[in-house]
């Protein structure tokens, strides 16, 4: 699992680390597209075939006398159901298994393909995350703790392009921490720690939302995640010692204020 190695003590010096070839967003988008394509294709074919048959073999015969349905007829090639008979099957078993086989191949193919991507998401190989953040959910907000020990219950601020590992837990009830747009999501369970990671391609404003019903404030349990451009992060590193929680805190406050005053707007690629 990602992050199982030693947690780095330094916040990332960008450019010096290897970045991953594919982010969670890339993987999700590709997989979603493949599934959507196959799903739509299969759905359209099966539903069309269903409706086509239902339409083709409809009968226009009028209702029989004293009934609310057509007269029963028995033709040579098809044995029709008869009242009180012992149930048995119509012919068509071979076709049934052929279709069954085809659907099995499609479904298994999709799953095997998706499984290879799962292994990638679960274990990114040699690439250690550039930074680790501990996330603790509580009714009704998130508390973050950075590698350097800096803690906050305000916005999460991370650099663009960095691989950010998250260790997620909860202080009270079960939550689910998810950053929409970055495809990071993990259950926040009291007494347990779960892990996930993300890497932003574009700087900007994202939202961390609680995806598990956690009480009366659940609907409002959302907080911004600020992905600052690498230039902003690096400039910060030049001016402040990011290994020192207090200095990092100063930079963090300044950056947040700048962002709230709209000073970062022209540098952010994604805005709410």
């Amino acid at each position, binding site marked *: 699992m990602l992050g199982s190695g030693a947690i780095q003590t330094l916040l990332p010096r960008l450019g010096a680390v290897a970045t991953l070839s594919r982010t969670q967003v890339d993987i999700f988008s590709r997989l979603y597209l493949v599934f959507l394509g196959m799903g739509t294709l299969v759905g359209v074919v099966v539903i069309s075939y*269903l409706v086509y048959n239902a339409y083709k073999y409809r009968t226009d015969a009028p209702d*029989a006398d004293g009934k609310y*349905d057509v007269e029963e007829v028995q033709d040579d090639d098809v044995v*029709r159901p008869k009242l009180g008979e*012992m149930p048995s099957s*119509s012919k068509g078993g071979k*076709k049934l298994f052929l279709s069954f086989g085809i659907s099995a191949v499609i479904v298994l193919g999709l799953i095997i393909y998706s499984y290879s991507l799962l292994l990638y998401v679960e274990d990114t190989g040699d690439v250690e995350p550039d930074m680790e953040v501990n996330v603790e959910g509580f009714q009704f907000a998130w508390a973050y703790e950075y590698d350097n020990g800096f803690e906050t219950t305000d916005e999460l601020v991370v650099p663009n392009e960095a691989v950010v590992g998250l260790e997620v837990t909860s202080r009270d009830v079960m939550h689910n921490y998810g950053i929409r747009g970055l495809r990071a999501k993990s259950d926040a369970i009291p007494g347990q720690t779960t892990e996930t990671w993300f890497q932003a391609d574009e700087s900007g404003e994202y939202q961390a939302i609680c995806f598990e019903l956690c009480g009366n404030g*659940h*609907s409002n349990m959302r907080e911004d995640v600020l992905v600052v451009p690498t230039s902003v992060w690096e400039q910060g590193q030049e001016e402040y010692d990011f290994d020192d929680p207090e200095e990092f805190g100063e930079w963090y406050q300044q950056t947040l204020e700048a962002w709230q005053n709209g000073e970062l707007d022209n540098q952010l690629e994604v805005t709410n």
Partner: protein
Amino acid sequence: MGDLPPRSSVKRWLVTTNHKDIGILYLLTSVFFLVVAGVLALLIRIQLLQSGGTILSDAGYNQVVTSHGFLMIFWFLSPFAFGFANYFVPLQIGADDLAFPRLNAMSYWLYLFSGVLVLGSFFQGATFMGGWTAYAPLNVPSYIPDFGQVGSFATILALIAFIGSVTIGSVNFLTTIYRMRAKGLRMRDIPLFSISILVTVWMMLFAFAAYLAALIILSSDHLLHTSFFALETGSGPEATDSGSLLWTHIFWFFGHPEVYIVFFPALGVLGEMVQTFSGRRLVGRKWFIIAMALVGIQSFIVWMHHMFLTAISLEIKTVMMVTTVAISLPFDLMVFSLIYTMIKGKIRWKTPFLFSLGALVIFIIGGITGVFLGAIVLDYSFRGTYWVVAHFHYVMASSAVILIGAVYYWFPKMTGKMYNEFLGKVHFAMAFIGFNLLYFPMFIVWETPRRIFHYNSGFTMWHQTATAGAFLFAASFLVMFYNLAKSLYSDRHVGESPWSYVASPEWAVSSPPPLENFPGKPSFASGELNFLDRAETDGGVEDAATDGGVEETLAPPEEHADHASWWPFLTASSVVLTGFGLAGLSVSHFVWPFLFAIPAFVAALGVHGARQDGFAQIHGIYMMLSFPLLALFFIFFHIGIGIGELASMSAYFWAALVGAVWGAYTLAGIGYESFEVPEPKMAEQWPFESVENTKLGMWTFIASDIIVFGAFIGAYIFTRIEYGWQEWWKLAKDPAAHTMAEQALEHHPVLPGLINTYLLLASSFTVVLALSAARRTEDYSIGPFSISNRSATVTFLGLTFGGAAFFLVNKGIEWVDLFVHQGWTFGVDVMSSTFYLTTGMHALHVIIGMLVMLFLIARAWTGAYVGEGEDASTIEYFGLYWHFVDIVWLFLFPLFYIL
């Protein structure tokens, strides 16, 4: 017991035990809950008209979302399907009624009154608001706002009562289908709907048992303040490390089979409707059935796909992914089977067929979008979003759509009147369009978080479309209500079948079917359905002709068709007051109403017994015994609470007291009521030819109880492993946390448990002796002493009772020592919680067994069960239960005292 009044009388519906009446009651009641839950759904949709909500508060919205889920899944979908099952399974398999008609009525009334309880919870402050999944620890009092505590607990109690109903129903249907099929009808030959019910009740029997265990654990956290899910520490509540996962495991172990439980009955009707309206036998019927059975089994090993984002390991995720994806394949087969059945058909686009077709389209979409969720990486992103909401509505609500089709399919059979075809088609058009307008946009704006009324402003249009669709979907039901009500009074009479190409036996009888179901004894022995002359098959009439007096003992099997009984209604009604009261009681008060109910039960046994069997000494003893017992409990009460406190007791206390006493009185009543249902004759009974109905019922009940205890033991083992198997003992030793617990541990002795093990084993032995004494035809004599077999039976039952009593006394001493003297209370840590609750559940089984024994002793005293011509089986069935209780202890003893 008496004859049934006519259907126009209200009394008929209160006392009926006839399966068709009860089917109708189920259908009407579940439609009522559909309307309630549907209105809640409309409230959700109105709230979602704009991001940020419109009419509901946070707490209000959570309550609406939660109760919409509970009511639709538990109080609408399943009971709706089981309304049809009640009505049609006996007709389809050629039985006169269900195996246990009175228990069937009990199932219904428990269902209704549990529904009253859950609706009442809205008026007890607030109903449960933690979602239908009720994840821990949000589901315990520490995390529920004060105003919602009573109502939340009432909801949990209502669910427990509902599971009572489900379990009785499952036992009933299993026994019926295995033991009461028409001659010649093999298991594989019963109509598809009945087969789907069979698979469903098997799943119900086991899945709901696990849920019951979870709910009892949850109730215990509410009532006794045990700490499975959260600890009360000095500084406030603190979730336990294992509680959240424990709940999700047990809940989804139940919850995933539950999805198929609500879907399978619909799948069965779908098969029948497609066959009928295509005019062609189902393609691959055998494989269809095998696929269903496979899904039924497999449904118990996929549950962790609801937990992909919890801390479970990649290996387990992979296994669950494989089982999950594999479970979609049998469904593919079933869908293709239905499609191929239409080829070369003579398809009539009647309303039931339209609903079948529409539901198939819906189900195909629901199935495909489900495969998305099976791919773990996609699931990571879909978790907690509207993709999940849309997917499961496409699946679960397709079940509702099929069952609505079934309403049109079987309405003519049940009422003898034809509905209006045009209005039926209007209903379908509105429902189908409304359905897709409602749910399809949810796929488009799937990034909306679930159970939240804030969303991206760009999504507004789609959510408004969904709301419009919801209103259209809702309005379509008004068309149906109008159509059916109007048609009921029309003159469009139908004969045996309005449809062509029907096959199953329900269409071979008049519409509506006669009270006794069939004109003669149905039989498939010749390879097709025949009705044999009842007199010839039963042999009852010939005997009656020669001697009128024999007629009663040789009652023909159909005679119970008009049995009436007040007791199911009366007994189940006690649930409302008891549940309402219990929900508001504190840990120190809750036990008293139930203690005071015990003397009431003993007295009631005396009264009912004297009335039924004629007054005997034992009845006098019981009546007299109840007074000192009551006095004893009053003394206990005075020591524990104080007599003076009675004046200031809350309404909850009195409600629980009245409810419990009423329950005790009515349970004694139902026990004593003579309600003979003869064993089926001339029936296909493979594979249970040699097991009587009641014994099979007892076996299936015990099977489900095994799962209940299995879940308790599983919860204990899971929790203990989470804390470390051996560290467990040190858990209680942590002096910082619990100073008293250290001593408690040293006094957590093995000896009382060991003594109790021997006591229970001995009592298992004596109950066997009681049975053999009852079966003996002559008296025992040892030398000069002689003892009648009746006295011997009573003595051995008494000894069994004594063993159980000693067991409880011994346990009581142990508990008082641990609880009072050592201060090792219920909630002091998870270790004490698992210990008290699991052994307490077992003790509760012992107490129930003792109450039954009081009944058996009184009956045996007056000569029942004993000697020639008497049936000792009741003692045997009780013995099965008693051995089971003993065996459970053989597992608990090492687990809690030694390992």
